[in-house]
């Protein structure tokens, strides 16, 4: 017996002669009442959230920046010009005032007047309005290989004369361009660290769900594992690892391994939180209903119960993102974070961890922090948008 039989034989039982009256959302429009699927529904709701869309756009932009870092950065991340150590940011301006008072369109930055203070052991920079450093787009600059493959020397933006100083966001203590370093840093920061976030997310959710869903000895076992893992001293682990990892590995590889281990240890709190919610949810009628519908246990967990935790998980993930991006700053204490010559936002922040920077070169601290904040806020607002889109109560 097939299903159609019910329908064809019995026919629709009750057909509303007419329902409650409806009207189109906007005057004059016809009402389309076709139902759409849940995913399209969520996508549709997401698209209508402006903040989330802007955030999503920024995330996309960040990834594009990371992808084309070599091209977008005016200089190479490691190029150091000793005479410009700690040079402050220059303003980008569009007009130069000519001696006769009229102004002319000339895209440029101002050069510096440099003085060396012997006793204070520093160079002082004064932005010199008379020195004009013309800036152009798609200019020729230092040669690089895009993605390590394609040799190129065009830069999206840069000084027309490659030897002129252009420090849009200032220079660091070795006279390297902070802007270029920030651009290069995007690549690593937006990728490697996030792998760890993803991994601990998966571990935490899966183990937490299982623990809370099954209860009993499974729960007992997983909880004991959580206790052990969370009480595990990580510092000696790192130190041991730092010694065990072959020196020939590149710093990026090492860091990748470290993030993976971080995530192998970092899932416990999420797991417990998920478990707590599962314990409360698993006896709900709708779960029983799904079970009676024949759902497998995996489906019960992931399709029926887990969506109730969407908000929580999204929140936890967005909270984990900054932690992972700046993880190097604390890992570097132990010599296992990312290290120069690799450039990442964390490395930049690591360089800013001193009073000298705070007191005299705040741009070294502000820009990388801002980059992290922007990235994190974007993830957060995008996550929020997703959450709202998936929230049945939200219209």
């Amino acid at each position, binding site marked *: 017996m097939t299903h159609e039989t019910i329908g064809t034989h019995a026919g629709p039982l009750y057909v509303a002669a007419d329902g409650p009256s409806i009207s189109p959302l906007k005057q004059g429009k016809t009402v389309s009442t076709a139902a759409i699927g849940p995913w399209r529904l969520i996508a549709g709701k997401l698209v209508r959230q402006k903040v989330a869309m802007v955030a999503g756009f920024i995330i996309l932009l960040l990834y594009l920046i990371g992808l084309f870092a070599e091209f977008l950065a005016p200089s190479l991340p*490691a190029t*150091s*010009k*000793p*005479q410009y*150590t700690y040079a402050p940011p220059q303003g980008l301006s569009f007009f130069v005032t000519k001696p006769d008072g009229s102004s002319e369109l000339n895209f440029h930055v101002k050069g510096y007047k440099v003085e*060396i*203070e012997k*006793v*204070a*052991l*520093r*160079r002082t920079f004064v932005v010199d309005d008379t020195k004009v450093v013309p800036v152009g787009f798609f200019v020729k600059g230092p040669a690089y290989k895009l993605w390590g493959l394609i040799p190129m020397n065009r830069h999206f933006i840069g000084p027309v004369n490659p030897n002129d100083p252009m420090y849009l966001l200032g220079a660091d*203590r*070795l*006279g390297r361009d902070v802007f270029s370093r920030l651009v290069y840093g995007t690549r690593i920061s937006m990728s490697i660290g996030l792998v760890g976030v993803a991994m601990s997310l998966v571990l935490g959710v899966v183990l937490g769900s299982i623990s809370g869903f099954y209860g009993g000895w499974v729960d007992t076992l997983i909880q004991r594992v959580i206790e052990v893992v969370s009480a595990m001293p990580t510092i000696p682990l790192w*130190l041991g690892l*730092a*010694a065990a990892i072959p*020196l*020939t590995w590149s*710093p990026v590889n090492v860091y990748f391994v470290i993030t993976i281990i971080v995530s192998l240890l970092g899932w416990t709190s999420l797991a417990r939180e998920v478990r707590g919610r599962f314990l409360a949810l698993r006896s709900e009628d709708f779960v029983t209903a799904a079970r009676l519908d024949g759902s497998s246990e995996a489906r019960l967990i992931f399709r029926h119960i887990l969506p109730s935790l969407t908000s929580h998980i999204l929140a936890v993930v967005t909270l984990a993102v900054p932690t992972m991006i700046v993880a190097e700053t604390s890992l*570097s204490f*132990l*010599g296992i974070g990312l*290290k*120069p*010559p690799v450039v990442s936002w964390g490395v930049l922040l690591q360089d800013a*961890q*001193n*009073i*000298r920077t705070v*007191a*005299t070169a705040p741009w070294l601290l502000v820009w990388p922090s801002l980059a992290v904040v922007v990235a994190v806020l974007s993830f957060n607002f995008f996550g929020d948008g997703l959450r709202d889109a998936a929230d049945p109560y939200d219209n």
Partner: protein
Amino acid sequence: VDYKEANILKEKVSSGALPPLKDRLPENPLVIKPVESVGKYGGDWNMALVGGGSLSMLFRYQAYEPLLRYKPDWSGVTLNVAEAFDGNADSTEYTIRLRKGMKWSDGHPYTTADVKFWYDTILTDKRVAATGQGHWKSGGQPAKLEVVDEQTFKVIFEKPNGMFPLQVAWANNDQTTRCPKHYLEKFHIDYNPKADELAKQQGFESWIVAFQTASGFRDDNAFFLNSSKKPCLHAWMFTIAPGENTERAVAERNPFYWKVDTEGNQLPYMDRIVYQMVADPQVLLLKAMQGEIDLMDQYIATPNNKSVLYDAREQGQYDFYTLTSTEANVMNFIFNLNHNDETKRKLFRNKDFRAALSMALDRQSLIDAVLVGQGAPAQPSIKQSDPLYNEQLATQFTNYDVDKANAMLDTLIPKRDDQNFRLDEKGRRVTVIFEIDQARAVFLDLFQLVIPMFQAVGIDAQMRTMDRSLWETRVRQGRDFDATAHQFGANGGVAAMLDPRYYVPTDSNAMYAPAWQLWYLDRNNANAEEPPEETKKQLELYDKLKSTSDPAAQQEIMKQILQGAAENFYVFGISLPPDGYGIVKNNMKNITKIMPNSFGWPTPAPTMPEQFYKV
């Protein structure tokens, strides 16, 4: 003479808590001539300690009281605890006289019995292992101690030991004046049969551990930890020792201190030294800027911090003093000449290889970027003002010449791979991994700039930073590393002879030749390796130097060693170290404004902190 004392002590004397000053001073106290003027009593010397552990620098402030001490300009030694210190002609026998009536900080007399106790239980007791004091040995054998009377003892060496007086004054070579018998004997089984039980009561496994803990001779840190119970001869003694309180350590004036100023005032002038325990140097920097530190150079006085310290002089009410550098170079490139890998060893040992790399360095730009233009291109060497100066050693291969470097390398390793890196004999890319202790911020900066320079001549140079212990294990104790970088090593005078690490491989600090230095120390060591002739010749010269006591003859031999160093070109460097600096509060007086910076000459202790005072 009419001696005077601080008011606090006067009160204690009148209350009977202390014997009168006359009874506390030795018959012949050491008279100190103040640097500027006779000072006045009182005040705290505000200081800080960074991290819990690294206490060995306490020699610098309150604990430099060896038998002989270095002169403030490090030109030689002068009497200190010892009232007399004489050697025989061939430097095999030294007669040392202590001051009669000199007392430990608890009032107990300090005599040759204390020295004997130290000799018996520390230096020669195989059960107890204590650090250092290698200067009491010659040819691997400890010197003989002969006690003449309560004040006089003789040190008799089997072979001539001409450097003994110089070494006695070295910062931590002063165990003879740090070992109070009356306090320590109860912990030693030979003096107290129940020592084991005592140890167990205190929670130790055996008397050895207890004795070691109490004596603190396991290492310098241990010595200063919790040492408030241990009597000392220092100007200030701990009342709250490091480790007894986690926030601060306090040392108060030693009422039995045995030095007076020219007017008969018992030293020290200042009442106390107060150390704040600071966990991070950056906080210390802020504290210094705030004016909470009276005199200090360690941790904070880096080139990078100078500009902020400079700006804060007003608020912190301090000024700078100058530290003349005693180091051979700001950074030495050290290749492992005993590398386990045959090909690499061969390549690294080739002087041309090292010379080429040396010429690949644009030293001036490194100096400009990292040292703010302070310094001048130079190899690790003796400074120009020193009689030992050797021009070849100082200047060879310092010109920046990429073409020449390439040309030299082309004769050695001409082949290159598709990324333009050179290939060695075996066809492998020539990769040199520099292993760096990550705590050395200047090295990291330098290397970021150096690596592209090496790469420009086709060498795949890479940098790996690591935690210090790991670095110790891998580099100082290993033979698998390619290369590393380090500092220290002396750039002149007495120091160069005592620590010639970059000129001749005499101890484990010569990291470029781990196997050769072992050979020098112990030919039978399984890891030792016989050095080539020219190095052996240098080592023989060094042996000769050690057994010479005439300063002029010593200089002559040292010159020959340095010439050998110039020819062998073991290591290369970047720049002469620029002078360092320290900060001193404006109200601190009797401060020497220019002094050397070293561990062995424990800056600023030889300038006599006991006569510092505050207005």
